[in-house]
């Protein structure tokens, strides 16, 4: 793999503002009830040692994606740069991928729905019937990343070719880049911190790293 795009999310910085959630919804026009990116709010521990953690989650773009293996139509594919995508034209909406994903990343909606019942002009303009009754999920704003090949800009550095959630984060908690490049922002960040990946024990090899401490601590 010449490139592998990953996300590094610094849990020390995330304040749970959900700006990334809103940015994703705006960028991808997801319908009500569908959140490709969302921030979970966990409380752990017992009084007096109670902690609260904000956990941004979305598709983990696994290097060993269970969704791809179970998909009967090959609609779900993994690209050479590590992104896991869905071809809406092939998908039959069987939901097998939804069962296979340990990260609750995928969803299927069968009927058009709008925020306030009747569609607003923006919802009419952005409605895509091809996304009905098929599986959908975060795609790391693949259209923006593909522009990097045209413009020569760098995903994770230049906002025009970086996922919307990364651009929107007000705390600088979400980072994006090529982990195969030792000089990239994510490579350097991960080298200087301690991180984990969600449910690594399941063998999915996810592409999202959660930073929880400095390396020197």
């Amino acid at each position, binding site marked *: 793999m010449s490139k592998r795009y990953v996300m590094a999310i*610094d*849990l*020390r910085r995330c304040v749970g503002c959900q700006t990334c959630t809103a940015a994703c919804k705006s960028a991808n026009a997801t319908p009500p009830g569908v959140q490709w990116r*969302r921030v*979970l*709010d*966990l*409380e*752990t*521990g*017992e009084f007096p*040692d*109670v*902690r*609260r*953690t904000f*956990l941004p*989650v979305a598709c983990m773009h696994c290097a060993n994606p*269970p969704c*791809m*293996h*179970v*998909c*009967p*139509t*090959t*609609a779900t594919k993994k690209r050479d740069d590590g992104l896991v995508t869905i071809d809406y034209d*092939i*998908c*039959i*909406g*069987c*939901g*097998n991928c*939804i*069962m*296979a*994903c*340990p*990260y*609750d990343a995928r969803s*299927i909606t*069968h009927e058009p729905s709008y925020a306030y019942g009747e569609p607003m002009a923006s919802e009419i303009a952005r409605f895509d019937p091809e996304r*009905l*009754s*098929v599986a959908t999920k975060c795609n790391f704003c693949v259209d923006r990343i593909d522009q990097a090949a045209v413009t020569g800009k760098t995903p994770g550095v230049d906002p025009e070719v970086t996922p919307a959630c990364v651009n929107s984060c007000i705390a600088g908690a979400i980072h994006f880049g090529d982990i195969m490049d030792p000089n990239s922002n994510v490579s350097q960040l991960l080298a200087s911190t*301690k991180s*984990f990946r*969600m*449910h690594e*024990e*399941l063998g*999915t090899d996810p592409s999202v790293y959660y*930073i*929880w*401490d*400095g390396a020197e*601590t």
Partner: protein
Amino acid sequence: MSGTRQILDRVSPRLQRRWDARAATNFICGGAGGGLLIVTALASLWNPGLRPLVVLAMALVAAGLTAVWFEIGRPRRAFNVYRNVATSWMSREAMLAPPLFAFAAAAIILNWSIAYWIAGLLGLAYAYAQGRMLCANIGIPAWRQPGVVDMILTTSLTEGTGLLCAAALYWPALAPFGFLLAAVVLLRFLVWRNYLANLRRAGAPSGTLEAFDAFDSPFAWLGHAMPVLAALAGAVIGSVLLLAFAGVLAAGAGAWFKYVLVCRAAFTQGFALPRTPSRGGGAAGAGGAPGWIGGQGLLQPSVPRRRNEDV
């Protein structure tokens, strides 16, 4: 847990609702049909004229596939299901259906013994593919247990044998198959206990274990103890009524198990933290796995309070 709390809490494992009773129908009918095909092939060695049972088996498999057709989002693209035989057990299950129907039809029309057996083996393979399909869905801890394949296979055999014994009402010569029914029911019970033990050992969402705990005792009595006793009594004294009763109980319990597995115990993985982050001047802390019991590797089990818990 109220519906509001379920919606607010996206952290803990939650009951999947994407695959509903229609998906369960595919596993119930497909497995029973596959099991019936293989035991009918066996029974046909001593009992010619069991073609109606092959028809029944075909109808069951067809009913299962029809239920799936009504469930998928884009049914007009259904034939795309054959595009990933390389890795997808759903594709493989679909691939088995046409030859299964073809050889079953040959058994019905031509009454060839070889056709019965090939159809029977394909039926067994069909049930196996269904078990592997479930097992490949690692997002559902109850399904990814390796023992689920054994459970699906043995219960499919049990359901098929149960239906065969129920048919003893019309073919009294099938009465000796009560012994086979007792044997497969006992086997299913052993496989079930093993599956449940392994699930607890590996760790599972609390909702999964609660669903299985509620199901375990009636499954044991209605699905195993009573059918075994009735099947043995029916076979020994030649009572087709007892045999049919045993068969219906055994088959019905299998269907019930598959419904519970697909629709009641199928909780998702949920999210967990190995460690909580250091914030400000503080230190990192222990993690948590809300809604899980056991397992979770390095995680420290905790009983977290969720935000808006009182909502």
